[in-house]
């Protein structure tokens, strides 16, 4: 198991290097140098210390050096937790990102749990009642969730929640709880607001998970051992739960890798619509103002989250299913 863990972590290194390269390219992509923009803006405001300020920044990030050196400086800064300066907020990027990233993790985590809770019974029902009306109806429902653009669903749900339950519009909690210490009221308020993004983001991922669980379970149910178990008089419920279901459960864990990027993508756009204090709106704003250090760091963090998520799912899978652990170890 430790060998497998070490092997998996070793594999992460080239992936992370690749991710940082792509992110760096994206930071460099926009035409026009943000320093020249900054000088122009600064001089327009009639400040005298422009030149020094710029010189300091140029020095710190090596902006006058060749591109590959800039990359190395950026990466080594990143490793030390220094993600650069957000030119828009005039604050270190880490400060801007911190809180919102933490909220993003909460939203993404709850969404995945929601997806599981919904997908599990539906998947099992669809597989055991193949081609029944229930199966067709639920499949159609899943497809509808897949096909409806998240942002519009979010907008409509927000409106309905406001009309039906009087939930305040936008944000992750009622306005009076913002920046307040944790209380029971704040917690309830967050729960009241959290369900909309969770349901909306969850709809797109649920369909895929249902279909995979259904397909896996159907494959498993046709196997000889299930027939034997039934022939020997095991009750249908036991013949379903004891082995086939356990085998078919793998996608739930394995799918975190697929689900997580999808959920984070969904979270970005949905949170823009719902104006949640998560990464979405800040990322959008950063991109619109070409605040590229901030945008790049966001991208990097989101990708890093995904890599960690996949690692965790792989490890869980290895714990649950010895075949993976053994095959992974034998190959290398």
């Amino acid at each position, binding site marked *: 198991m430790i060998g497998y863990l070490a092997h998996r972590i070793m594999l992460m290194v080239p992936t992370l290097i690749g991710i940082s390269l*792509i992110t760096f390219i*994206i930071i460099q992509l926009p035409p026009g140098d943000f320093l020249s923009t900054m000088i122009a803006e600064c001089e327009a405001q009639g400040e005298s210390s422009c030149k020094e300020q710029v010189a300091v920044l140029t020095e710190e990030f090596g902006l006058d050096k060749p591109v590959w050196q800039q990359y190395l400086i950026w990466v080594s800064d990143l490793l030390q937790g220094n993600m650069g300066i957000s030119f828009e907020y005039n604050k270190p990027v880490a400060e801007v990102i911190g809180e919102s990233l933490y909220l993003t993790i909460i939203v993404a985590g709850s969404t995945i749990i929601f997806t599981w809770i919904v997908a599990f019974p539906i998947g099992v029902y669809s597989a055991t009642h193949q081609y029944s009306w229930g199966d067709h109806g639920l499949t159609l429902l899943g497809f*509808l969730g897949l096909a409806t*653009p*998240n942002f519009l669903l979010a*907008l409509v749900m927000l409106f309905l929640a406001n009309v039906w339950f009087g939930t305040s519009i936008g944000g992750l909690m009622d306005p009076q709880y913002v920046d307040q210490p944790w209380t029971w009221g704040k917690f309830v308020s967050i729960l009241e607001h959290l369900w909309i993004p969770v349901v909306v983001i969850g709809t797109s991922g649920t369909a895929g998970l249902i279909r995979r669980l259904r397909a896996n379970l159907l494959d498993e149910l046709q196997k000889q051992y299930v027939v034997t178990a039934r022939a020997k008089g095991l009750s249908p419920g036991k013949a379903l739960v004891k082995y086939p279901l356990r085998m078919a459960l793998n996608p739930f864990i394995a799918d975190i890798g697929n689900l997580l990027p*999808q959920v984070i993508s969904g979270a970005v756009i949905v949170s823009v619509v719902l104006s949640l204090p998560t990464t979405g709106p800040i*990322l959008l704003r950063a991109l619109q103002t070409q605040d590229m250090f901030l945008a790049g760091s966001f991208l990097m963090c989101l990708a890093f989250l995904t890599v960690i998520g996949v690692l965790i799912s792989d490890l869980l899978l290895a714990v649950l299913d010895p075949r993976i652990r053994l095959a992974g170890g034998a190959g290398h």
Partner: protein
Amino acid sequence: MTDTTPNTSGNIPRYVNEEPWDANAVEVLTPAQEKFYLANQWTLMWWKFRRHKLAVWSGVLLIMTFGSILISEILAPYNLHSRNTDFLYAPPQMVRIFHEGELVRPFVYGFDYRLDMETLERVYTANKEQVQPIRFFCLGDDYEFWGMIEGSFHIICPAEDGTLFLLGTDRLGRDMLSRILYGARISLTVGLIGIAISFLLGVILGGLSGYYGGWIDSAVQRLIEIIRSFPELPLWMALSASLPVTWSPIWVYFGITIILGLFDWTGLARAVRSKLLALREEDFATAAVLMGAKPKRVIFRHLMPSFTSHLIASATLSIPSMILGETALSFLGLGLRPPITSWGVLLNEAQNINVVALYPWLMLPVVPVIIVVLAFNFLGDGLRDAADPYK
């Protein structure tokens, strides 16, 4: 014991069949069987696909939708940009055929307009006096067919001096139905061009990785893993935000399709790779190599045909994500920009909660998005089932 030998004493007439005796009679196939066994692979797939009713109807629907983008100008009652400044945010008009209890040709009631002085809401009410018969196969708004031929022929137009807003109007008084019909042109082709790019990349990279194996395989696998760890939307957002602002809308359009295609090939590449890995061990592949065929010929002439159908099916299944991607980007204002009109650009107008409350018809462009995405999914499912007709 009773006698079991047959009674030969009776005078049974001897019967001989006149027909010539055919020793292979058992093996002869019925015409239906013969047709089945002799049919080639593609015919078999078609037969199997035909049984999947939902997929067939989705296919028909998609052909019709794609057909409509050829003649959007003629189908739409108004021009893409024609503004009716007297009718801002007008609600959909209903087509009626009964006027004062009598059956008449299809018509709509005209609008009475007043501004609610308290809420400043525009209130339109149907005026039962004004009957505006809809004209069919008529001359209406001028347009340039595909930007080249001038014309003014429409299949459906409003009455002279009347209006026909079947799906309402937007904030500039532009007809939503016409704009949705024109928007199909952009939204649907984004998916097609995007998938063409991702198909090309997927086949080439997946092919290289599956056929050669070794370090090429590891490199491509790593690349796929890196790309897959980026959440798609933020990556697309970052890239489309970095398209130069000086680009003309049409260049932005191509830029966006390329961005969408550039990161979608990973699934296809994995499918190609796994198929190739399995197939290159087959005898016919070894035979081709032994006879001196170059890798390119082995891949494209011998191996590819055995799974082209799978590729088509998975490509069909990934078009929806591109259409949704474009819609999301344009909705956020990072994708296409007016005057280019796609469904996402139209939905950009429906960005705040007021729209849902006051002008819900501005959200209608989402309906074609959902229908097209569903249709592609069902079609793809049918194709995937049909792709392996020997099962």
